[in-house]
């Protein structure tokens, strides 16, 4: 397919931004100045200043001398990059590939996009008018090459749209500066009498190379489409993504649901063909007011089931705030994995951890309350109670060891041992009475102690002597004394409850 590019030129990018920020400056001549070789030089102007003869590159003092009422403001360094990035992100609704073209433009790869707006003419008009509405003085052009679009946007006088293959005629009458050349080369061209591109376009390359160098030839070839030019998009394209453009901005939950349904259906059919499933997906909603809201889902196993994806996103619809309306939906599968179709069939309907229904259930729960709250544990080879298990990494994770069953362990273990007051008959005897949270328990039967040493290579501290006790009401508890008995009893804690 023939590539088409659009170049957007913001004539007074930074001054326009400043006038939007400070409307009182609107009708005044403004120059933005920055120091250069110990002199203040004009870096940007507005229309009112240009009308009085000020141009970029003048000394600030000269500009002040020839105009009245000139507002001299310091140039905000690096602002243009920030502004272009913001405008570029806004342009994502017209094409997925937008690149910044410093210092004052954007390049859009519009191949395959304009027909959604009827024609290239309508497309260009929509973008330019919207940008002008936003307050930026904009010019744009469409051509087969980045170079030609750039040249026409800045220097073209006839038409902003160059038909496919017509870039040579399109730029023929423009001045050499339209080729994005260095100032020294432009000076040389001017001295030699080249006033337009056509005067040297047909010259032999060897002749041109000798006088102007390789860079000049590359720019010429790029403008004519004889050499490739690569763009660096602001948002790297995601390989698995689907876009849905709304004719009218939508606001209702039902409309968002339909959009999700449509997007996931087309994405899933593509994943189906390639044998892949989604692990992580993001739904980006671009709103009329220029903001973007998004909802993300993750799955425990690769999924390409439309109904499942719809359910997962359905849980998040209330988080998507449509405000005045959403005009573009973008569904990106940021992480995909291969799924084995045979395996999927084998496990369907079979109870167990590999069950598809279980994985989908966990995805829904994770979407609602957060994945960190779902835990599965596997045995770990530690005696220290808090470390005797480890969270499983995935549903497929299996343990190399079995659960230990030779020691009594409480069915409920407190995350943090709770201090208790204890009375024991003899220092190393199990307690006779203990008080926990103000309640007095008289111990009837007891087992122990079971000493568990702290793993010194992991942390420091005292060992624990665990006792299993039963009070007169039948409640069974796991108590421990931290460290040795040292004359005044040691610290006692309640750590768990037995069934």
């Amino acid at each position, binding site marked *: 397919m023939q590539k088409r590019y659009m170049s957007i030129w913001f004539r007074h990018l930074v001054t326009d931004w400043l006038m939007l920020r400070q409307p009182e400056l609107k009708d005044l001549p403004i120059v933005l100045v920055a120091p250069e070789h110990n002199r203040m030089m004009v870096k940007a102007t507005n229309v009112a200043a240009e009308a009085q003869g000020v141009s970029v590159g003048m000394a600030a003092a000269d500009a002040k001398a020839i105009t009245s009422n000139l507002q001299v403001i310091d140039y905000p360094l690096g602002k243009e990059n920030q502004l272009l990035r913001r405008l570029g992100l806004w342009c994502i609704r017209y094409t997925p590939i937008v690149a910044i073209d410093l210092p004052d433009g954007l390049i859009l790869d519009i191949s395959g996009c304009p027909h959604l707006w009827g024609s290239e003419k309508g497309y260009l008009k929509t973008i330019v008018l919207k940008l002008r509405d936003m307050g930026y003085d904009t010019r744009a052009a469409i051509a087969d090459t980045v170079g030609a679009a750039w040249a026409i946007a800045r220097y073209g006088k006839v038409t902003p749209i160059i038909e496919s293959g017509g870039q040579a005629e399109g730029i023929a009458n423009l001045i050499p500066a339209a080729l994005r050349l260095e100032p020294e080369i432009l000076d040389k061209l001017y001295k030699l009498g080249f006033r337009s591109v056509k005067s040297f376009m047909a010259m032999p390359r060897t002749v041109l190379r000798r006088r102007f160098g390789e860079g000049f030839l590359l720019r010429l070839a790029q403008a004519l489409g004889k050499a490739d030019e690569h763009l660096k998009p602001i948002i790297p394209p995601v390989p698995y993504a689907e876009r849905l453009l709304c004719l009218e901005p939508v606001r209702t939950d039902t409309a968002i649901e339909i959009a999700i349904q449509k997007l996931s259906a087309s994405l899933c059919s593509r994943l189906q063909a390639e044998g892949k499933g989604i692990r992580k997906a993001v739904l980006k909603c671009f709103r009329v007011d220029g903001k973007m809201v998004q909802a993300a889902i993750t799955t425990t196993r690769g999924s390409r089931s439309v109904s499942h994806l719809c359910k997962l996103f359905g849980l998040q619809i209330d988080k998507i705030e449509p405000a005045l309306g959403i005009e573009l939906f973008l569904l990106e599968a940021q992480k995909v994995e291969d799924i084995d179709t045979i395996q999927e069939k084998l496990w369907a*309907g079979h*109870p*167990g*951890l590999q*069950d*598809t*229904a*279980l994985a*989908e*259930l*966990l995805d*829904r*729960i994770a979407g*609602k*309350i957060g994945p960190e*709250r*779902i*835990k*599965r*544990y*596997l*045995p770990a080879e530690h005696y220290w*109670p808090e470390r*005797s*298990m480890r969270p*499983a990494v995935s549903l497929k994770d*299996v*343990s190399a060891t079995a*659960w*230990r*069953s030779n020691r*009594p*362990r*409480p*069915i*409920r*273990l*407190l*995350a943090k041992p709770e201090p208790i007051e204890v009375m024991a008959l003899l220092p190393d005897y199990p307690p006779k009475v203990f008080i926990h949270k103000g*309640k007095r328990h008289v111990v*009837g*039967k*007891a*087992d122990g102690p079971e000493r568990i040493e702290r793993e010194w290579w992991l942390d420091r501290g005292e060992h624990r002597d665990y006792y*299993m006790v*039963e009070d*007169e*009401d*039948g*409640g*069974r508890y796991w108590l421990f004394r931290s460290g040795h008995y040292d004359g005044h009893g040691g610290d006692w804690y309640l750590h*768990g*409850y*037995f*069934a």
Partner: protein
Amino acid sequence: MPATKKELIDSLQKDILQLEGYKPPPAGTQQLMGLGPIEAAFPNGVFPLGTVHELVCGTTEEATASSGLITGLLSVLMQNGGVCLWISLTGNLFPSALVNFGAEADRLIFIRVMKDQEALWVMEEALKCPGLVAVIAEVKELDFKQSRRLQLAVEQSHVTGFILRNTSKKIGSTACAARWQVKPLPSEAVDGLPGLGFPRWQIELLRVRNGHPSHWVMEWAAGQFRPVDKKQVLIPERKAG
């Protein structure tokens, strides 16, 4: 004639049971839960699976005893490789101990929630999922409407649900199939040896739909439930506070 009258009532009762969704299990497929005499209290003499059971527990000790009972039941339910979900607010269940009650902790998925509402949402979603064996939720309160929703979810999927109600200040009616209360009892020394005996509970069926509420004393010994002769047991009077 009394014989015919009794037969008539029996057949009518069976009809009512069937209308209420209780199907008599086909002969030979009866799954015993290992609960011994308790199972006879349920309609048709079978522990009702695919319904929601409610366990009332006022203290942590009672909640722990109830967890023990459930884990003992899970060991039977999870025999053929099924998965369970345990939803709780505290999240203090200790997986390493479950093996003592015969349950395989690595096929148990724990979900920690912040509110009752979340717990009930997760439970309802989970009860709709036919891939699970049982879903256990620890909540503070449960009202009739919520229990009805859970019961409806369960009717489609035949997953068994257990609700642990951690506060039992006032117990309203619910749509659960059975209401249990499990209290720990002092254990009996084995062969006169010192130390603790087998975990012993007083299991009370406060309410059973179409069954016979009653109470039993059970022990968990050697990997199964074992009824304890009531005469031996002295149920202590609980002191207030």
